[in-house]
């Protein structure tokens, strides 16, 4: 019994000692925790940065600090160590005490956004390692390096052109341009459409020998082709060729009377320049990107089809942004001949006869390939009903478990970022069969697309954090004006209420209050260069004078801004003199010409009085970025009086740059 008691005493004594040791170890460990030593370091460091007066005012730090954001489900204790983060006195100081660089905390207050909403990482951790400043096993979202941080900008900023995030903006632009959302559902890109050409009459359009080359590798014909390489087998190509060349829904417009032997390709060349085709189409690497490159158009299309298409593009391609010029058959003939002669490979022979496929099995197999590979997602073909999106939905792709994704033979860190990047760059190089085409993106382009997709998260944020993409309502005017807008495809380049293209310099919403009616009419008939340094220019439509009047009348009556129209124009000679002085003092001549003197970054201001309305000039000078976001015109922060004086001066400028003759009073 005594022995038993003794044993128990010994056991209790040992336990007591063990508890004491554990307890003291805990105390010691807690007292020397990384964040405590860091805070002690900070207190010493603060005395070297601040003077005694500032020190007396500073709140002193002791204990854990955190930012709790219940809306975002985040607790960020980063500020426990990053103690100078919002104090300008610590600009450029040693880490972790450095103030946040730049002015980001001004636009993104730390109390509202915390740290991990932008930087990722483990916000609740209180030491360097477990906060995942560097990648850490089992941590899905370690801190992002600055190179990829724009992905988190994109979780709140949903517009296609988010501010201060150029790589994200470029990635989203590439997604829109490549039409990824035709095959994949991608949240944030709803309502956008991407259309390749309709294929209903392809049998009339292309030379038969061109099609298999295109299908094998579109980049071999157009280096900037938007269509990816589907890695088709020769059998699939043969089937598709037979199926597509059998599509002959509407024959080209009759061109049997055209005397091709009399075609004047020198006149065609002149027309090619005058019509400003290069505003939308590039040739030999230069020109716009809205339409397809024309450098080798002669290898691709048939003559009678091209003639018919130039005459009326909308008959066979109702969705095309291409306008319908008003040209005579002779002009169309010359232009067609020029295009086919000038832009073709030397080895391309004369046009072969049409091919008719008798082998119904081949055609059927081609149709099966067409449907299986999702061609109808981008190309309209009346014979095929739209099968919907063929690719998997990308909703929440950024929150996929990186360890469940395939990486193929690539030795990479397993992150969703890397998976998306590799998939976009080399869809077939991951360890699973893929029917996604290879788009031929450069690594830099693929990285930007991956950044844009890495902002597509599963859980949605509270509405107060999200800046949604504006979706403008479609603008389709009726009547004669509407017909002209459709014919000349004004909305391919110009926008109304945010709807339309962005190639033009200003939106049309208040164009009637911007431009003088007579100038507008003249400009529509013969558009000249307002900005000589801008390559894309308005095409010369060969519009009828009556049509130009109709459009100008409509714009000058409907597209008005009453606040600009009401502008008081009772200027005195003193106002004009003051305006002229200001013009020199502000340095306007650096970018604008008046009477052939000055720079050519902005428009030539000679003749402004006949071109612009005074209310617009004043409004533009006061807030240029409101009238046209991103414009190169600087906002000088002018007073209304100074803007008025400049308006008086500019409005008095005649076409030679001197004072304009005062029109006789009516």
């Amino acid at each position: 019994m005594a022995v038993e008691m003794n044993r128990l005493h010994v056991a209790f004594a040992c336990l007591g000692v063990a508890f004491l040791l554990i307890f003291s170890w805990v105390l010691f460990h807690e007292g020397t925790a990384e964040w405590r030593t860091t805070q002690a370091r900070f207190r010493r460091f603060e005395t070297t940065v601040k003077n005694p007066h500032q020190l007396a005012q500073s709140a002193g730090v002791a204990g854990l600090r955190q930012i709790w954001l219940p809306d975002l489900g985040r607790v960020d204790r980063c500020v426990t160590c990053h103690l100078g983060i919002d104090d300008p006195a610590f600009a450029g100081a040693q880490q972790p005490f450095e103030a946040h660089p730049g002015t980001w905390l001004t636009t993104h207050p730390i109390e509202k956004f915390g740290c991990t909403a932008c930087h990722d990482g483990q916000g609740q951790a209180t030491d360097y390692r477990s906060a995942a400043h560097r990648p850490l096993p089992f941590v899905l979202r370690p801190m992002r390096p600055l190179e990829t941080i724009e992905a988190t900008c994109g979780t709140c900023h949903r517009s296609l052109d988010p501010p201060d995030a150029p790589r994200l903006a470029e990635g989203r632009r590439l997604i829109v341009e490549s039409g990824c959302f035709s095959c994949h559902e991608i949240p944030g890109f709803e309502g956008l459409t991407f259309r390749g050409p309709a294929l209903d009459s392809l049998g009339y359009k292309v030379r038969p020998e061109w099609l298999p080359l295109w299908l094998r590798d579109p980049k071999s014909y157009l280096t900037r082709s938007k269509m990816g390489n589907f890695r088709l087998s020769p059998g699939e190509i043969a089937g598709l060729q037979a199926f597509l060349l059998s599509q002959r829904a509407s024959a080209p417009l009759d061109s049997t009377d055209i005397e091709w032997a009399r075609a004047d390709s020198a006149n065609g060349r002149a027309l090619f320049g005058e019509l400003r085709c290069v505003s939308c189409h590039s040739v030999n690497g230069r020109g716009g990107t809205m339409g397809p490159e024309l450098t080798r158009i002669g290898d691709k299309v048939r003559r009678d089809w091209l003639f018919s298409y130039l005459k009326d593009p909308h008959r066979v391609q109702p969705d095309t942004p291409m306008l319908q010029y008003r040209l005579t058959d002779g002009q169309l003939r010359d232009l067609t001949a020029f295009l086919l002669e000038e832009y073709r490979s030397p080895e391309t022979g004369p046009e072969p006869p049409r091919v008719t496929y008798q082998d119904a099995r081949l055609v059927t197999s081609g149709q099966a390939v067409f449907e299986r590979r999702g061609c109808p997602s981008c190309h309209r073909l009346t014979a095929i009903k739209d099968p919907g999106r063929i690719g998997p939905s990308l909703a929440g792709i950024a929150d996929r478990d990186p360890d469940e994704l395939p990486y193929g033979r690539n030795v990479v860190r397993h992150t969703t970022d890397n998976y998306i990047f590799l998939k976009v760059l080399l869809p077939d190089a991951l360890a699973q069969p893929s029917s996604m085409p290879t788009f031929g993106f450069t690594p830099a382009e693929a990285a930007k697309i991956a950044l844009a997709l890495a902002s597509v998260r599963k859980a949605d944020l509270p509405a107060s954090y999200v800046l949604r993409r504006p979706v403008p309502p479609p603008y389709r005017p009726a009547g004669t004006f509407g017909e002209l807008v459709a014919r000349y495809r004004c909305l391919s380049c110009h926008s109304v209420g945010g709807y339309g293209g962005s190639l033009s310099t200003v939106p049309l919403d208040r164009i009637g209050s911007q431009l003088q009616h007579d100038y507008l009419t003249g400009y529509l008939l013969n558009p000249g260069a307002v900005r000589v340094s801008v390559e894309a220019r308005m095409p010369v439509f060969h519009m009828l004078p009556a049509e130009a009047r109709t459009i100008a009348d409509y714009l000058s009556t409907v597209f008005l801004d009453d606040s600009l129209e009401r502008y008081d124009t009772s200027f005195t000679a003193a106002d004009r003199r003051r305006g002229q002085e200001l013009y020199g003092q502000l340095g306007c001549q650096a970018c604008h010409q008046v009477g052939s003197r000055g720079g050519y970054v902005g428009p030539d201001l000679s003749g402004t009085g006949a071109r612009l309305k005074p209310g617009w000039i004043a409004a533009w000078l006061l807030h240029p970025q409101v009238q046209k976001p991103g414009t190169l015109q600087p906002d000088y922060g002018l007073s209304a009086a100074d803007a008025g004086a400049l308006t008086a001066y500019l409005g008095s400028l005649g076409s030679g740059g001197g004072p304009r003759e005062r029109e006789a009073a009516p």
Partner: protein
Amino acid sequence: VKPSVVKLGVVKLGIGLLLMGVLSTGCRSGPRPAPGDPLLDAIRADERGANLSLSESQGKRLFAQYCATCHGDEGRGDGQNASNLSPPPPDLTTATGRDTAYIRKVIAEGSAATGRSALSPPWGHSLSLQEVDALVAFCESLGRHKS
């Protein structure tokens, strides 16, 4: 304890150790390559080719859009509009004694604010704070990368 049992135990231990050795060498047949970050590499290759920091490379993009028409792509004062300017734009790669505050003032308030010609306009009302930051960073990098 019988010696045969001890012998058996030693043999078992030996076999076990041998197996472990074989297995462990089998697992590590060569030096494993460190896993890469291809996305990061692609961005760095694209934007740090000129050895610019992040904010400098953002500034470079803005510089090309807003400034290069006069100042030239590399800030040498040889932009296409430079010949129309008197005085001509300075070569920013050789400009010395320009501290951050001075550069910020010229960009945000225009060259007239520092007592020079008015030809370089103020951008402070048009660009965001971040954009001005990035432009300042890029301008500061111009002298550094002269060589």
